[in-house]
């Protein structure tokens, strides 16, 4: 039994010795993170979009990992654009990054469907209109479908602007890939 106690002490010591150099910006909605990611990357910060630590997880969350040494200036920047995080926490372990792989499929040479994770968006290449949105399970998916289907890819607000959830984040990946493929 003493051995187990010793091992536990060592684990605690290791954690305590690990230097905390990264922090996490926690937001209310995953899609706020899309805007924050763009702003901070444009400013040259080394950031990653990741899942929050377990104590912050509800099942549909996303946060931004950043270098803790820049906490003050990043907080000031986000406050100035009205995107202040709900919380800022130091972290010692790496969060999971959302999936950015996509799968593409063409139908009859006319329709292009792109799927990211569980979300699919299909566009008519002749008219440039979004003809279907499929997959997903968060409540903003049917809402985004209502707002986006029938709109031209070039005219429509992106899922990152219309939605709130991780499904919206994945659909935004499909949308961005479609814009890349078909041109904005």
């Amino acid at each position: 039994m003493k051995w187990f106690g010793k091992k536990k002490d060592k684990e605690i010591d290791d954690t305590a010795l690990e230097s905390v150099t990264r922090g996490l910006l926690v937001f209310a909605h995953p899609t706020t993170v899309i805007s924050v990611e763009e702003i901070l990357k444009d400013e040259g910060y080394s950031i990653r979009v990741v899942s929050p630590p377990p104590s912050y997880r509800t099942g549909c969350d996303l946060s931004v990992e950043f270098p803790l040494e820049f906490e003050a200036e990043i907080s000031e920047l986000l406050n100035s654009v009205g995107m202040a995080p709900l919380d800022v926490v130091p972290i010692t372990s790496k969060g999971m990054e959302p999936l950015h792989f996509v799968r593409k499929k063409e139908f009859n040479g006319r329709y292009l469907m792109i799927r990211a994770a569980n979300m699919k968006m299909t566009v008519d290449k002749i008219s440039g209109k979004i003809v279907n949105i499929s997959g997903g399970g968060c409540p903003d998916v049917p809402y985004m479908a209502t707002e986006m289907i029938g709109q031209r890819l070039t005219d429509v607000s992106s899922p990152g602007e219309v939605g709130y959830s991780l499904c919206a984040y994945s659909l935004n990946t499909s949308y961005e890939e479609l814009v890349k493929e078909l041109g904005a």
Partner: protein
Amino acid sequence: MLLLAGSVPVKDLPLLIGPVEITSHGIKMDGHVLEVNRGNEAMMTAAALICQEYKLDKPVGMVAGDTGNRAGSEAIYKYLAENLPNMNADVVTLHYVMPDINLNKKVLATIDTMDKKPVMIADAGTMYVAKAGGDAHYYDVFTPDLGEMAFLADDKADHPAFTRGYIFDLEDDVPALIQKAHEANNVPATMFVKGATDYICLNGEIVETISEPCVETMEPIGGTGDLITGMISALIYAGKSPLDACRIAGRVNRQAGVLSQPTPATQIEEILQFLPQALHEVLEQLG
């Protein structure tokens, strides 16, 4: 009673509860008509059509408006946590809601207090939160598509958006995903995996696949999975076993696809209208 619950994309719509009536403008519930687009309305319409064909009482719908701000989803979780034991539900299907592990656990804690536990079916956000919370064992049937199957197989992911790349790449090996998900206790006893080939599973074993007729243009159409979930719910309520409900629903969905001859631009209500005919044809084929 068959209870179907989930959010609808109508801003500020309060919690509505009542029998689901099919009208020419959509489904009518608690004095409100809801347009059938996809999601819960499509799932509820499919269930109501099957109940109608089996001459059962109408399913009871529970909806609240939620376009992503969580308010409607929270109203549904809270109502279920406080009132489910008094609703006398035999089958409960929970569908589009904003995943919230804590609120979902309150609903499940309420179910723990019930002498007679209803048959529990989960798809969409409810399936995500059940898996993320380690609560898949509370449910009887899940109905994932391939992207969701990969998520269920990844014991580290809280949401399909976090599925790790190497598991996402396993989608061409669906049996491996099913096995991984089962070994991690992330799925209930019965599962219907929707795809070009549908997989019907019991306790982690594939007991049947359905791949014909294949209407490839169904894949991009939003709501086809919702129809399957609605039909499975109603068929179980009609007395079918979960496995038989999956067998029938999978075939009816494909047959409705054949009858509607969709393009990738077809919307789900165009397929829904063929469900009764497709059901008759499938039941005749199955004898």
